[in-house]
C-alpha cells in the first residue's frame, strides 16, 4: 500500500520535450513509473523516445487514461499548465518547477479548490513523490529508497528528503511513500494532507516529518498529530540556528519576529508526542528506534 500514487498510476509529463522534462521523464520511466505521454502544443503528434506527445492534457488523458501529471514547465508558464491539467481531467498534479510567483500559486490554489475540488496539487518547487518500487514522479533518485514500509515520509525540503530516505535505507527500513511538499509559500499539498493519508494507509505504521523554519505549517501539523494521529511520528526541523530575518534560500524559509522559529516548531511537535531529532541523522535514529519497538 501507499498514498497518492502506486504502480497503476499513469502520468503525463507537461514539458516532456524540454531538457529537464525529457531527462527526468525518461529517468522516471526507467524506474518503472507509467510515463504514458507528454504535452507541448507545438509538438503534438511527435514522440520522446517512444512516449507520445499531445497538444494538451485533455487530449493526453483521453488517449491514455492518465490520472496524474508532472510539470517541468518554466515558472512563467506554470499557472497555465496547472489549469490545463485540471481542465483536462488530471486528478493529481505534481509541479517540480521552482521560482513560481507567490501570487500565481495563491491564485491557482484557490481556483482549483473552487472549480476542481477533486484535484490535488503537489508543489510547486518540490522534488515530487515516490512510492518506492512502484512509482517515482519527479527528481528523487529512486535507488536511495527501500521499497515496502513501514515508514511514510513527508518533507518540505528537497535534499533533506533524500537524506531521510537514505538514512532509512542505511538502516534497512522501507518506505511506503515519500512526499516532498516543497518550501514555497502556498504548497498545494500540506503536511496535514499527507499525515491524514498516512494515518489512513494500513501499510504505513510510522511517519517521518521534515520541516523548516518559517510559516506555521509545522505548528498546524503538530496540532493535527496531537488530535488525530495514532501512528508514531519522528521529526527534524532545519534552520534551528538560522538568524532571524535572514532568508535562507527557500521562499518559505524565513523567520521574522520570533514567529516560525525552529524552537517554536520543535516545542509544538514535542508537545504532540513527536520524537524530535536535532539533525537528520538523529531523526533517522529516532525512527529506527520506533520501528524496532514495533
Amino acid at each position: 500500500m501507499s498514498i497518492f500514487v502506486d504502480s497503476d498510476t499513469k502520468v503525463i509529463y507537461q514539458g516532456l520535450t524540454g531538457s529537464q522534462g525529457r531527462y527526468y521523464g525518461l529517468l522516471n520511466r526507467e524506474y518503472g513509473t507509467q510515463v504514458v505521454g507528454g504535452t507541448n502544443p507545438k509538438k503534438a503528434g511527435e514522440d520522446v523516445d517512444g512516449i507520445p506527445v499531445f497538444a494538451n492534457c485533455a487530449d493526453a488523458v483521453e488517449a491514455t487514461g492518465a490520472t496524474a501529471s508532472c510539470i517541468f514547465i518554466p515558472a512563467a508558464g506554470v499557472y497555465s499548465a496547472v489549469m490545463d491539467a485540471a481542465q483536462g481531467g488530471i486528478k493529481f498534479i505534481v509541479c517540480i518547477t521552482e521560482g513560481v510567483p507567490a501570487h500565481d500559486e495563491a491564485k491557482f490554489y484557490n481556483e482549483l479548490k473552487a472549480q476542481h475540488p477533486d484535484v490535488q496539487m503537489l508543489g510547486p518547487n518540490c522534488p515530487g513523490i515516490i512510492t518506492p518500487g512502484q512509482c517515482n514522479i519527479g527528481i528523487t533518485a529512486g535507488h536511495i529508497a527501500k521499497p515496502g514500509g513501514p515508514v511514510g515520509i513527508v518533507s518540505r525540503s528537497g535534499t533533506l528528503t533524500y537524506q531521510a530516505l537514505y538514512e532509512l535505507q542505511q538502516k534497512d527500513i522501507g518506505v511506503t511513500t515519500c512526499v516532498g511538499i516543497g518550501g514555497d509559500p502556498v504548497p498545494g499539498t500540506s503536511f496535514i494532507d499527507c499525515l491524514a493519508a498516512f494515518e489512513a494507509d494500513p501499510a504505513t505504521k510510522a511517519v517521518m516529518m521534515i520541516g523548516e523554519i518559517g510559516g506555521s505549517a509545522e505548528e498546524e501539523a503538530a496540532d493535527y498529530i496531537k488530535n488525530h494521529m495514532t501512528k508514531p511520528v519522528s521529526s527534524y526541523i532545519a534552520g534551528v540556528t538560522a538568524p532571524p530575518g535572514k532568508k535562507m534560500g527557500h521562499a518559505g524559509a524565513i523567520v521574522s519576529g520570533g514567529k516560525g522559529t525552529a524552537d517554536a516548531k520543535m516545542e509544538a511537535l514535542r508537545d504532540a508526542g513527536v520524537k524530535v531529532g536535532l539533525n537528520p541523522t538523529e531523526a533517522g535514529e529516532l525512527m529506527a528506534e520506533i520501528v524496532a519497538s514495533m
Partner: protein
Amino acid sequence: MDLFEYQGKQFFNQFGMPISDGEVAFTVQEAVSAAERLGTPVMVKAQVHSGGRGKAGGVKFAATVDDVQEHATNILGLDINGHIVHRLWIEKASDISEEYYASFTLDRSAKKHLGMLSAEGGVEIETVAVENPDAISKIHVDPAVGLTREAAQVWVDGANLNPVAVEGAVDIVMKLYTAYVEGDADLVEINPLILTPDNRVHVLDAKVTLDANSVFRHPDYAEFDETQPRDEREEAAHDKGLQYVGLEGSVGVIANGAGLAMSTVDVINQVGGKPANFLDIGGGANADVMAGALEVINNDPEVESIFINIFGGITRGEEVANGIIEALNRVDIDAPIVIRLDGTNAEEGRAILEPALNDKLMMEPTMLDAARKAVALAKGADA
C-alpha cells in the same frame, strides 16, 4: 526584494495613490537644493532597508533650508541597525490630523490575501496586534475572486476611522490591493496612512517587498535588485548566481540544497562552531559552480576552515568528486577543507577523492564527524 521608502511611494503612485512631492538626495548639497525647489518645511528621511528610522534619529522635520543642511549632515552616514545611510528622501512636510495603518500580505495558513486596516497607525502594528487586537480590521481576500468595492467598504467600516476619512480610505485600499496583485508584492504597507486637516487621506510612508520570482514579467524591477543591501561577500555570490547568506562565524559552508545547507549550519552550531555563511549550490554540484562557491568563501577573511557537505541524488558521487577536484585545481584555497560526500555512488566518489587528500583536504564519513573536524580546524586556527 525590499524597496526604499521613496521607491515604494513611487510604486504606489503608479497605481494612483496620493503621495507627497519629494526628491532623492545623496549629498548634503543635493538635499539643500531639493528643499529649495520643493519649498520648506520639509521632512529629511533616511532611506535604509530597516525599521526604527525615527528612533535612530534618521527622520527629521526641517522648517528652513538651514535645518535641512544640519539634518542632512547628521543623517548621511548614520548607522541605523547596521545599515549605513547613503541616501535621503526630502519630502514636503504634511499636516497630520490622524494616523492610520493599512497593508496587504499573504496569509500562508489561510492561503488567501490578508488586508489589515487600523485607526491606530504610526506605531508598530505588532504592538497594536498584541495590546489591542480589536483595533485591527481584517479582511481575507480570495485571490481567485479579488477585492470588490463592497467588501472593501465593509472592511473599512470595521476599522472605526474618522467618518470623513472613509471614502478616501476605501479608494486607497482598492488601489493598494491592485498594486499588491499587479505588482507581485509579498507585502505592501502604509504606516502611517494619514488624514490631513483638510480631510484628505494620504500616503505618508511606504513599505514594499516585491517577489523576486516575478521579475520575468516586471523587467523594470532590475533597478530594485541593484539597491538590495548586500555585504561584499553576498554581492560576489549574487554575481555568480549563488544562494548565499553571510553569517559571522569562521566555518565556511558549501552544501547542495537549501535544506541541507540550513541543516549544515545547524550541525556546526550544535558541535560548538560558528558558520561563516549559508551557501546552497543546488543539485548539480559541477566544477563551475563548486569553483565559484570556493572563490566566494576563500575571499572571506574570517573563514578558517571549509565544510563541503554534498548529498548525491541524481548527480552521482563520482561526478561530484570530479567537480570538487577540478574546482580545487582552479582556485587556490587558503583554509583547510573537510568533505562529507554521501548518497548515490558515494563509495565511487570517495575513491576519486582519496588520492587527493592531505592536511588541507580531508574527508569524513558523516555530517556530524565532518562538522566536528571543520570546527576543530577553525578553532585551531584561532589559537
